[in-house]
């Protein structure tokens, strides 16, 4: 993946984040190259969500720096000014564990509101874009439904379409299938696999080992910091750290 003349989309250097006295993240450095899929695993409370949320400044890290698409998002606790921050956030799609769809808007409006209000697209153009994205996630026929009328798997696919409507350079997924009934997990992973195959750059927090094995270029094991990283087959079959072994045993027994 790493060719010397290609710049990383995401560069994290010596990142540190505290909540009050509690040190959540420390010394995290990471490069994510275009089209790379990075899967992040780690025990609950190990800072996986916080790391993703730092990558679009939903949380502001106190130390270190994050560069996205060659722009400094945050350096030593200083964020980009609001206007530029909003522009950069458009390049970073985020999919949440709890979907966070807008319940007062139809499925179509959920997807089209971004391009219409933020990318200056006309109503017609944004509707067309939204419909094509809904088609892509297999929900074109539910365009006029409201989120409350959808299953969890459908909601998450709409949320993915909503994020894609901003045409992001990188997508962040925070346990996108953890809130789903087991039989609905597959349809969401399917969409994510297709996205990866198209060359989308992705950082995915998930405990779906099958997905990681199949799609990930790199697996990170977190526990406040990156305790281990490598190709999925190496990390899963041959973990170097005792903590990784314990953790893997724990999730595989479920």
């Amino acid at each position, binding site marked *: 993946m790493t060719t010397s003349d290609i710049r990383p989309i995401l560069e994290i250097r010596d990142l540190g984040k505290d909540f009050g006295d509690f040190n959540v993240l420390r010394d995290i450095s990471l490069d994510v190259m275009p089209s790379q899929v990075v899967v992040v695993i780690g025990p609950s409370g190990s800072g996986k969500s916080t790391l993703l949320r730092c990558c679009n400044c*939903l949380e502001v890290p106190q130390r270190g720096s994050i560069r996205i698409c060659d722009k400094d998002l945050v350096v030593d606790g200083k964020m980009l000014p609001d206007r530029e921050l909003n522009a950069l*956030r*458009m390049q970073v799609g*985020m999919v*949440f564990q709890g979907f966070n769809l*807008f319940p*007062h808007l139809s499925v179509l409006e959920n997807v089209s509101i971004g391009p219409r209000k933020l990318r200056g697209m006309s109503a017609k153009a944004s509707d067309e874009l939204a419909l094509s994205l809904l088609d892509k996630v297999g929900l074109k026929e539910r365009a006029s439904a409201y989120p409350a009328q959808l299953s969890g798997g459908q909601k998450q696919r709409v949320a993915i379409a909503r994020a894609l409507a901003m045409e992001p350079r990188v997508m962040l997924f925070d346990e996108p299938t953890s809130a789903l009934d087991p039989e609905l997990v597959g349809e969401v992973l399917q969409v994510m696999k297709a996205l990866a195959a198209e060359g989308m750059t992705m950082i995915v927090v998930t405990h779906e080992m099958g997905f990681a094995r199949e799609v990930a270029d790199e697996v990170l094991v977190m526990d406040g910091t990156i305790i281990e990283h490598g190709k999925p087959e190496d990390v899963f079959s041959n973990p170097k750290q005792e903590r990784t072994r314990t953790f893997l045993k724990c999730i595989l027994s479920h």
Partner: protein
Amino acid sequence: MELDFSPVWRGWPDLLHGASVTVEITVASLVLSIIVGLCVGMARLDPGKRILYGTASAYVLFFRGTPLLVQLFLLFFGLPQFDILLPAFVCGVIGLGLYSGSYVSEVVRGAIQSIDRGQMEAARSMGMSYAHAMRYIILPQAVLRMVPPLGNEFIALIKNSALVSLLTISDLMHEGQKIISVSYRSLEVYIAVALIYLVLTTLAGQTLRLIEKRLRVGGMVQ
């Protein structure tokens, strides 16, 4: 004791006129109180913005913590000392509006804070500004939750508006008192006045239930 409602019938046109003034002043005050309530409610979302939050909190403290009648008299008898002469009706609307606005601001703040914070995060993570996210995502949902408490506030406003009769405004209460001053039939006239207020508050309550129902159709079941 004998009841004699004939002064009520004779004065009926005046009472109806008074009722219409009461409706006008209540609606005007409600509009003002919603505008003020929205601004103050939103100003009190973030204690980190010290000056905004402090000013808004001081406003709420004063207007919720002092009697409405005192506030009305301050406007009506106090302002002329600074050579500010406002028509009685305007004083009444400002007084009622500011008083009610302090309660509405709490309704607004509560409704906004009751919206899951994931909504703001989802909007911001798409690149929306705070203002856009408020306008397109948070407020449309919060407004639904404001309607029932705002209905109660509207009804309270109708009843509280009787106090503006003391500012020489010819509202329902004032018209009633004028009839009493010539007929001395307090009981009968106050019964009639009470019943008219009851009709107004009932109508208001029903209109609000209708609005609430309207807002809920269209799939926005939540």
